[in-house]
């Protein structure tokens, strides 16, 4: 438990010791209805370290937050005393375009990073929901990905190193800034997807890629979901330069302004000749299926990404199954009254949105997906659901407990996000 008694004095004194510009209004940082005792927006990594040291000393629970787009991912926090806004830590540390490597602080947004890289016609191929507003720290801590996952290298594939403020305030780095490196334990992989529960990511290094010269998005009309699945399989098995490949169920298609029927959405990237060839080959394939339209721009992908964060109260799931079970999961989601379902065939990931669903139906849906050899994870849900329904399902717990115990013995970093006490 937080040492509430000690709070007023200890935190009061602590705040006095900090430059005033880094102290924020706690009301701006509500999570699941809870206002923290205090909030900080440090401007330097050493300040993060100072705040964490303080929190550790007085056993205050800290929740790091960047763009605040994924704070309901995971279980409800057991304790929440200090909000740590990382958006002030956003400097570019190093960028060598010729080496295809970049190091940036974690509070920079993906948008900031892409803007820097695009000056040299490079980018980090990441397309998380809801959009490029996510901070680099948030992108990593949640390991979110979208339609590109599996088709082109992702954040998980391109992360080269990381600096983290540990729960005792010490600063630890792993990996490096070169494109190939196996020195020491890859701690950066552990923090990627750890939901800020093992340390505060303060900067990260990536390998980046050239921006493809051209891209084109095609929407392929299908008569039913099975046909959409078959079509997506044919495309995935082709040699065409796919970056995005998504199956939309009828409702999602309709919501995005198309007809009420399943679609396959594909994006090809490359040089002019490869785009030309890709369109030709797809037209050839579509003779056996239905209509094909070339979209004017790639806006549709951004619209899909934002679906998951459209409404605060909605429930967003990510299911993972093998490619040959994707259609089955989409059908199950429809039967369970999902309002939107779309899937990335290459990564085997299906996103499902419910407006209203009870825990019994949620459990049933999970066991159906697990029956297909897959998993179902809750990415966003109101607190009352996450209180009673485990967002993660059947995961390895002993090792996670063991890691948490060693990385954060007092349990001050996002306590409870993974499981009771973790």
């Amino acid at each position, binding site marked *: 438990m937080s040492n509430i008694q000690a709070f007023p004095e200890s935190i009061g004194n602590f705040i006095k010791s900090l430059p005033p510009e880094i102290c924020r209004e706690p009301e701006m940082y509500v999570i699941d209805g809870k206002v923290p005792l205090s909030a900080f927006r440090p401007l330097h990594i050493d300040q993060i370290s100072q705040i964490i040291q303080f929190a550790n000393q007085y056993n205050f629970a800290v929740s790091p937050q960047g763009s605040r787009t994924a704070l309901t991912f995971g279980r409800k926090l057991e304790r929440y005393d200090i909000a740590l806004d990382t958006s002030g830590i956003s400097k570019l540390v190093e960028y060598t375009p010729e080496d*295809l490597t970049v190091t940036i602080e974690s509070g920079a947004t993906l948008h900031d990073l892409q803007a820097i890289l695009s000056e040299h016609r490079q980018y980090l191929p990441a397309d998380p929901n809801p959009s490029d507003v996510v901070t680099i720290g948030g992108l990593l801590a949640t390991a979110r990905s979208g339609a590109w996952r599996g088709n082109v290298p992702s954040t998980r594939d391109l992360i080269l190193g990381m600096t983290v403020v540990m729960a005792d305030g010490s600063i630890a780095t*792993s990996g490096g800034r070169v494109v190939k490196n196996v020195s020491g334990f890859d701690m950066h992989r552990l923090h990627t997807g750890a939901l800020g529960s093992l340390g505060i990511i303060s900067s990260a290094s990536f390998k980046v890629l050239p921006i493809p010269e051209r891209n084109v998005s095609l929407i392929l009309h299908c008569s039913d979901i099975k046909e959409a699945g078959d079509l997506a399989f044919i495309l995935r098995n082709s*040699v065409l330069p796919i970056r995005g490949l998504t199956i939309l169920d009828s409702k999602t298609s309709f919501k995005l302004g198309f007809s009420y029927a399943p679609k396959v959405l594909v994006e090809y990237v490359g040089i002019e000749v490869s785009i030309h*060839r890709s369109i030709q080959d797809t037209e050839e394939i579509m003779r056996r299926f239905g209509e094909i339209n070339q979209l004017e721009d790639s806006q549709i992908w951004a619209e899909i990404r934002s679906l998951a964060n459209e409404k605060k109260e909605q429930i967003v799931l990510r299911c993972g199954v093998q490619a040959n079970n994707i259609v089955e999961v989409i059908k199950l989601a429809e039967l369970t009254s999902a309002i939107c379902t779309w899937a990335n065939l290459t990564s085997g990931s299906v996103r499902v949105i419910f407006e209203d669903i009870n825990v019994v139906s949620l459990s049933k849906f999970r066991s159906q997906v697990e029956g297909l050899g897959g998993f179902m994870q809750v990415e966003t849900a109101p607190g009352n659901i996450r209180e009673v329904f485990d967002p993660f399902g059947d*995961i390895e717990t002993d090792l996670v407990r063991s890691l948490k115990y060693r990385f954060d013995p007092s349990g001050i970093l996002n306590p409870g996000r993974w499981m009771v006490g973790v």
Partner: protein
Amino acid sequence: MIDCNSMENNQLTALIFDLTKKIKRSKILDAPEDLLVYEYDTSIDRALPDIVILPTTVEEVSHAVTVAAQYDIPVIPRGSGTGFAGGALPVKGGILIVLTAMNKIREIDAENRLAIVEPGVINLHLHEALEPYNLIYAPDPSSQRICTIGGNVGTNSGGPHTLAYGSTVNHILGMEVVLPGGRIVWLGGRQLDTPGMDLRGVFVGSEGTLGIVTAICVSLIPVNETVRTMLAIFDSIDAASSAVSAVIRSGVIPMAMEMMDQETIKVVEPRVRAGYPIDAGAVLLIEVEGLSEVVEHNSAVVVKACNELGAREVRIAESSLERESLWEGRKSAIGALGQTAPAIYLLDGVVPRTKLPEILNKVLLASHKAGFKCANMFHAGDGNLHPTVLFDPLESGATDRVLELGGEIMKLCVDAGGSITGEHGIGLEKRSYMEWVFTESDLAAMEKIRFSFDPVGNFNPCKILPTGHGCAQGHMQITDQQFSIPGVYV
């Protein structure tokens, strides 16, 4: 922990008795002449295990690990022993678990693009098995004819095609692991991004310190439509290494970009007849893949970039036979070098690609100063150097001087903002260099990972981290104390 090399005979008998409760006696080796075979890997050191086990099932592995825990003795996983860093050496004795008999490809699921293999499957055997499906498993270390996939997971192996596809970790969906203590778990699964922390990601490359891999689910990718292999011939290593950056600058990332210097060509060509011009200063072996239209375009870009940097000629392999022979030269280079000197010492370091010309010159200078010949054949596209020092271990003091030179070269990489290993791992060999790259608190954090998996510290002791686990500090000291006989090196 018991230092097993001092294990009493009666203790050994009891240990074998307990092991045979679930493991056939024929799979347990303890005769001195059998143990000798497992005394070395491809590094410079040697160390004898107390017992070797050749399991064929996960239950046997788990039993051996459980028994080892009861006896408080070290456990060391080993594949083919082709590792260069001494990762598979039982420096504190104990049970060496050799996984080469777990060598079945259990499943190839072409529809879902994955395969499940046992850890002892030889990398090349999986590549061959996938041919009928028109699929590949991307990691292709130059040692693929002999190394195991379990070993590749252990070291997070790279290879020529890492430039485009990344290291082993990017191709592992999940794996079954026997943890220290004997519990069997799956980390990751049959899909990407399974829920929970990415224990899979942190396990790959942990060099046998966190557990033993007993099954691996790998992801597969389709064979590209067209491949073109080119040989760019340069008069100097400087021009060749500048061309590497020029190619990347042009916006094309080839599948592979490998360099061989004059010293290497001189040795390889007469033996392999790969078609490398014997008088060249350096050659670049460059491969582009993709749609035929793209390959056409990208190879033109590559040729132009090389020509602008003064390539004498850029040859394009006209047939698959010619292509294979160009690669054969590269893949046999280490073996060929091994035949020219009593011993070779192969280093593994990384520098930012743009610093290649500068660092290569410094490497050659340092070797020259130390009085050794040094050949270079390496993954140039990734800036991953493999300076290979030729020497005679029987010459007094030579081994020490070679190790010293190795350290000097690693320091050059570190000072250039690079790394002390790109693919071979830290193992035993580079533990003492870890402090050049990482601070005390970095290492303390890494130790937390290790202890989270192995609180007792009996799994592959004395590897990766420079301190702790009751080991002597660093490589040189261990060498002095325990390995007075110089080894067989490649």
